[in-house]
């Protein structure tokens, strides 16, 4: 297909060449370096540094908190009694000196796997623009529709012959933009229900379905002869892939009911929890990227009640996923990213928000990462006592995307074309190349 990016095969060849050279040189310079040293480091970029963890992740889970998730009640609590905390409190975690909000007791026990960035800062305080920026790493721009992180990662590491989609979104996500629909997420709205249209209606048995498809193939023949294969091939491909997905036993990965009770309990009863279970099942069957969305974070009113309810879904869902991945030995090769479009305002009930509500706040908020070569039990960056401004190590969206690329072994500087326009995977704003967040890996 004309718009798909380079094929996996060519990527592999190039990477292997690059790695051979780089690994050799790196071994001479520093014997402690891990094997996976990537080609962009070898080219001695201005910020070039041999970071560990490169390419450690083979798959990616995105936990997207739609609406703008609070940083205060989650991973960046302020002191008890602080006016900005309201009735929420910090609690200790399995990592000494790292506190999280008291409504996340299970996450508190899992913090040795988690790296929290408490100083993410952007300028997009509008839902659509913030969602676009955080997912794509680019400021919205009417000329170019950039791919979301799920799509660009899938396009770099995915397998075009895979029976299952390379990128599954549970609850909706950012699309593939100029990479083309081939890399759009396969969207599942409800992880607790069967996948939409995956099974035939009662009056169409398998024999009848195959009769229809072979009839269709015959009917297409004259048109194909007159107008060429390139017109017909994409249609044929679409039905082939749909049929394969129907017929493969691997599609049982979408069926959460196959899981034992103990696992379902671990992840919690919520739809989000079930989404996380399905995510793990899909990863085990070879899906490269799964995004699970938890909505409801736009807490302009009565925030505490809303966040408490969200925590009942998020706390067991996310901690269950991390623990389950760890127990199965998958966490090290799986990068998990928790993020939202922006954070919430430090003060409660101010600035046009209802009683007990918080507004949109992109200036200083949190993102959490785990697995995939990222060192757990860490906190990066800090905000002042009120949480108004970043006081330490402000982190940009570009650095976060560079980190995802680093973990996934993707060349963040690779250029794809949106029409005639060259677009790097990670934006270089005003010519600045943003490096992965070093503190995550060393």
């Amino acid at each position: 297909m004309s718009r798909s990016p380079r094929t996996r095969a060519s990527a592999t060849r190039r990477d292997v060449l690059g790695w051979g050279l780089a690994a050799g040189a790196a071994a001479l310079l520093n014997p402690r370096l891990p094997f996976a040293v990537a080609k962009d480091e070898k080219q001695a970029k201005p910020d070039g540094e041999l970071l560990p963890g490169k390419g450690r992740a083979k798959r990616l889970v995105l936990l997207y908190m739609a609406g703008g998730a609070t940083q205060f009640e989650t991973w960046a609590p302020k002191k008890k009694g602080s006016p900005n905390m309201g009735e929420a409190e910090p609690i200790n975690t399995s990592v000494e000196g790292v506190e999280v909000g008291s409504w996340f007791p299970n996450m508190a026990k899992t913090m040795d796997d988690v790296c929290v960035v408490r100083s993410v800062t952007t300028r997009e305080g509008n839902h659509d623009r913030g969602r676009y920026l955080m997912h794509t790493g680019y400021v919205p721009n009417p000329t170019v529709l950039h791919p979301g992180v799920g799509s660009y990662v899938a396009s770099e590491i995915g397998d075009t012959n895979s029976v299952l989609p390379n990128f599954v979104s549970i609850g909706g996500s950012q699309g593939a933009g100029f990479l083309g629909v081939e890399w759009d997420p396969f969207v599942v709205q409800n992880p607790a229900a069967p996948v939409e249209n995956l099974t035939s209606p009662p009056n169409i048995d398998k024999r009848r379905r195959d009769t229809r498809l072979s009839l269709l193939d015959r009917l297409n023949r004259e048109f194909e002869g007159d107008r060429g294969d390139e017109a017909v091939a994409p249609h044929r491909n679409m039905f082939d892939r749909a049929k394969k997905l129907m017929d493969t036993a691997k599609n049982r990965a979408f069926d959460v009911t196959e899981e034992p009770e103990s696992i379902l309990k671990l992840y919690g009863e919520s739809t989000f929890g079930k989404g996380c279970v399905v995510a793990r099942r899909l990863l085990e069957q070879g899906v490269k990227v799964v995004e699970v969305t938890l909505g409801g974070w736009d807490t302009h009113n009565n925030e505490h009640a809303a966040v408490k309810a969200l925590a009942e879904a998020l706390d067991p869902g996310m901690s269950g996923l991390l623990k389950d991945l760890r127990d199965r030995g998958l966490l090290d090769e799986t990068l998990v990213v928790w993020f939202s479009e922006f954070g919430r305002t430090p003060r409660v009930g101010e600035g046009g928000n209802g009683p007990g509500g918080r507004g949109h706040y992109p200036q200083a908020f949190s993102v959490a990462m785990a697995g995939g070569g990222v060192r757990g039990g860490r906190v990066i960056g800090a905000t002042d006592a009120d949480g108004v401004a970043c006081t330490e190590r402000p982190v940009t969206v570009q650095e976060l995307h560079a980190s995802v690329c680093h973990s996934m072994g993707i060349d963040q500087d690779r250029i794809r074309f949106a029409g005639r326009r060259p677009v790097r995977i990670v934006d270089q704003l005003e010519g600045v190349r943003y490096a992965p967040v070093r503190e995550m890996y060393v």
Partner: protein
Amino acid sequence: MDRRRSSKSWLAALGLAGLVLATGAVSFAPPAAAAGPKDWKAAAAKADELLVGRLKSQKDLVVAPPADDAEFLRRVTMDLQGTIPTYEETVAFLQDPSPAKRTAVVDRLLSSTRHADWFAIWYGNLLVGSSARNRNVDRRAFNDWLREQFRKNRPYDEMVYDLVTASGNSEQNGALGLMTSFETSAADAAGKTSRYFLGVQMQCAQCHDHPYDKRIKQTDFQAYAAFFFTTTYRRNMSPNTPDISFDVNSYALEPAKGRAGTEMAAMPRGRGIPLMLEPVRRPADLRGRAAPALPDAKFLLGKTVKDVPGLDRRTVLAKWMTSKGNEWFAEAFANRMWAYFMGRGIVHPVDDFSTSNKPSNPELLKFLGDELARGDFDVNHLIRTIVATDAYQRSSKMPRGLERPDPSLYAVAAVKPLSVEQSFDALFRATGAEAEVERRLALRGNNMEGARRGLVDPRTQIYQLFRRSFDDDEGAEEETFTGTIPRGLLMMNGMEINRIMSSVNGDSPLKRILAESRSDRERVRRLYLTVLSRDPSAGELNNALTHVHTSRNEQEGYEDLLWALCNTTEFMSNH
């Protein structure tokens, strides 16, 4: 009298036109000589002549023969109404012995309600995207307005003038749809208006000088965006207003008190937020800030415009943009329409006019642009011209074994993918479900009038039911069909799809065909005419008969044939 022409004369009356003309790059061409009915036949012949010039320069080039009547009818109906012809229309057209029937059908289609409906959706999607729940546009009011423009065949320059200068409340003025879609971003307004109406990707210069057009600097983009700095935007969120309601206004500039010369005060009045390069979302965010400096506005590759007391900057921009002297305006639209009908722009991609992206046939582009401007931007004249060309009326078939020639030669008609709307309107018509859709639309329309309105256009909402499963990059110009797995699953297994394919369904053409036809031959033939708008070939007829005769039962056999016909590439494309 329309607003544009009247404001022109208003300007002249006040003696202000001279001011604008003296300072800006505006130059109004003299009014076109009053001509009789515009001669689209001559224009089409000229366009073909310019195309043949390029064809002749190619060696061993195969040019496709003319499309037969069925191919032409289906293509032109799909292009002008966004759906397939009905069975009755097809049969009547194929039987009509009149040599002028192709012209007659174009007239019939252009004057149909369906044409205005479809063009409103097509053009609306282009301007503000296809999302049914665009939170920034009263899509219903916008669609109503667009529909009215195409119904009246409103001159294109007037239409764009209204879109760019629209003010007031979004419910009262449907033309506001484009302006409200920008919210408070002047960069969006500048980037999109220059792209849609001038064909120039000026947005490329938002962050740096234009990479492909060295003439356009970053400062040019900023100065162009300054045309929108005197516009204010406000989202109404009171319980008394519709769900989606906006006010967009302009504050006319006044001489600053106590200052010398013509320096203008730039203080917005009212509760709206001015459009800026760095958007602000809420009035509260402006509190405590100094009034933003108001930089001069500058036309694209033109001169700086001095503000005129009482005159809004958007008006000045719209006048320059839509004037006959504008080097891009007419060509950009001629190119867009040419690309729409022919499957490829003379400048390709359509809205990327730049020094490094030359037109494949500059003479043709210039001719079409001139023809459009000469005809006072008569949209239907341009359409008639294009669809009357030999190039448009060529077959999309190529002799087997030959490679399809360079699409910019237009030697063979293009195979164009259908939009989501076209796909479903065609499917609804082929399966008879159209009747049910119309019933539902009528019901919903009536209900919505009484309720709070402004949510979505009901027709757009119907498409939205399917859009999720279909490939659709909003705002993207699809060149190739790339079907998604959900689309395949929907077509194979969707309950609704299978329901409308069923011969038991009361609206289904199968029901009538099975009851009325005397032979299987006739049944197959009628089904082909209903779905593919043509007769089957001998081979296809035999193939279909074999299928029907080997089916478990007749009803199932025909249902499967209907399903398969509706999923052919032929059905799912315009060719």
